[in-house]
């Protein structure tokens, strides 16, 4: 069993800023050099996510949907149509910016910024493997939940400031949804904290490296998705609602309210909201990978960590796209009831049962 294992002490992992400081020799230049190395590390992490979103948004999403609906998607530019990423970026950024007449200006302009940057900030504490881990505070998991919650404010700002009725409805729906699913998400995450005994991301990942069972010489790691599959499923569902993906994409429901809170956004503002949503899907995937799927763990040498990590979060992304093609959208009143009467009760039951079982076994 996972409990009863001595966990590594805090601070024995080498984080990315220190690594870069050593590699570039910047750590010899005192505080200024260290700050520069930290900034470089943050820049690398930010751009990894930007690149992944670039591949996911204009290319992978279209390819996956096309495969599900028996069509051929983007295949004209470059190998497998990959150069559409460049073409689409230029196209979207060079669109005219049309701001609605009654828009509430500072809020209207700030909303895309809030949505895009808050999602990016969550990746600061995610261990991506191969030494790509920016920061490892002791409150890691609480931090990432807190940061992921900031996006709701951006959605309300976008919905209200657009002065559009569809945007308003979309913004209100987004809050109702985030309010209903935040608690099940955090409480299910807490049942993992009971196993690991820490909120620190590196400790949670290390705790999952133990062997759960050996099947014919093959060691099955104690990933929390295998230790507690019920919590894993709960967390997946709550996460899809939290990032507003099918079957819980009611805030932007294109067949009901045009595009919800992003109806009035064009040009670079639209790109930023879209980007923020994709980074949010990946942040959700990163949290799932870290606390349920062993983080960057996988067969082969530890240097392959980033590959396994990317495979895992793309697995979650693929699942969102699969559900998008396969599952109908729930109605807003169903959504509220699923959250408060279903997931909330189940997540507390999971927490209590987990605590009792861990208590009896230890």
């Amino acid at each position, binding site marked *: 069993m996972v*409990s009863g294992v001595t966990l590594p002490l805090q601070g024995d992992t080498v*984080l990315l*800023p*220190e690594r870069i400081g050593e590699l570039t020799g910047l750590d010899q230049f005192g505080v200024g050099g260290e*700050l520069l*190395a*930290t*900034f470089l590390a*943050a*820049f690398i*992490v*930010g751009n990894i996510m930007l690149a992944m979103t670039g591949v996911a948004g204009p290319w992978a999403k279209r390819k996956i949907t096309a495969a599900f609906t028996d069509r051929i998607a983007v295949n004209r530019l470059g190998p497998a149509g990959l150069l559409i990423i460049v073409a689409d970026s230029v196209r979207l*950024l*060079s669109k*005219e910016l*049309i701001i609605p*007449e*009654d828009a509430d200006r500072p809020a209207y302009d700030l909303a895309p*910024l809030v949505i*895009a*940057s*808050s999602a*990016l*900030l969550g*990746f600061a*504490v995610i261990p991506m493997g191969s030494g790509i881990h*920016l*920061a490892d*505070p002791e409150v890691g998991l*609480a*931090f990432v939940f807190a940061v992921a919650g900031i996006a709701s404010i951006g959605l309300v700002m976008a919905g209200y400031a657009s*002065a*559009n*009725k569809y945007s308003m409805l979309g913004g209100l729906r987004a809050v*109702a949804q985030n*309010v209903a699913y935040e*608690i099940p998400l955090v409480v299910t995450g*807490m049942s993992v904290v*009971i196993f690991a*005994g*820490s*909120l620190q991301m590196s400790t949670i990942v290390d705790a999952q490296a133990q062997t759960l069972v050996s099947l014919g010489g093959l060691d099955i790691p104690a990933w929390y998705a295998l230790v507690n599959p019920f919590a894993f499923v709960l967390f997946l569902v709550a996460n899809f609602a939290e990032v507003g993906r099918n079957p819980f994409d009611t805030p932007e429901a294109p067949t009901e309210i*045009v595009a919800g809170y992003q109806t009035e956004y064009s*040009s*670079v503002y639209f790109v*930023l909201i879209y980007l923020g949503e994709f980074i949010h899907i990946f942040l959700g995937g990163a949290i799932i990978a870290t606390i349920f799927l062993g983080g960057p763990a996988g067969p082969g040498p530890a240097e392959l960590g980033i590959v396994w990590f990317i495979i895992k979060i793309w697995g979650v992304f693929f699942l969102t796209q699969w559900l998008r093609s396969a599952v109908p959208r729930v*109605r807003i*009143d169903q959504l*509220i*009831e699923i959250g*408060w*009467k279903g997931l*909330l009760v189940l997540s*507390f039951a999971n*927490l*209590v049962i987990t*605590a*009792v079982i*861990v*208590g009896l076994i230890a």
Partner: protein
Amino acid sequence: MNDWIAIGALALVGLLIPLGMMAVSYLLRPSVPETSKRATYESGEVPTGGTRIRFNIQYYMVALLFVVFDIETVLLFPWAVVYLDAVESDAVSLLEILGPMLLFVAILMVGLAWAWRTGAVQWAQTPSQATSGSDRQ
């Protein structure tokens, strides 16, 4: 280097990337002002009425419940962190570490049951729907 400085650095990068994209877009995009181009989008119709009206947001009670449960999760986090250590040490018995939390969750569950019975955790019906008996289908 301190963890929080690294997080601050990523916050800075997270602001600089969108701002950079805005700057690039500012240099690239055209500006062709036309009459009614900036009108609010209402499926192609001429917009009627304003948006900032009094509006039944349907989930006032749910939002209040959220505050209660959110504070509860904050209070449960420290318990979840120390739980494993406390169970493994012989200083406290299982009942001592598990009991208070169970009581705490039970009180909140009673609250949720009350909210459930009074219909607070469902999408509110408009008065016309409630009287005509056409419930949420």
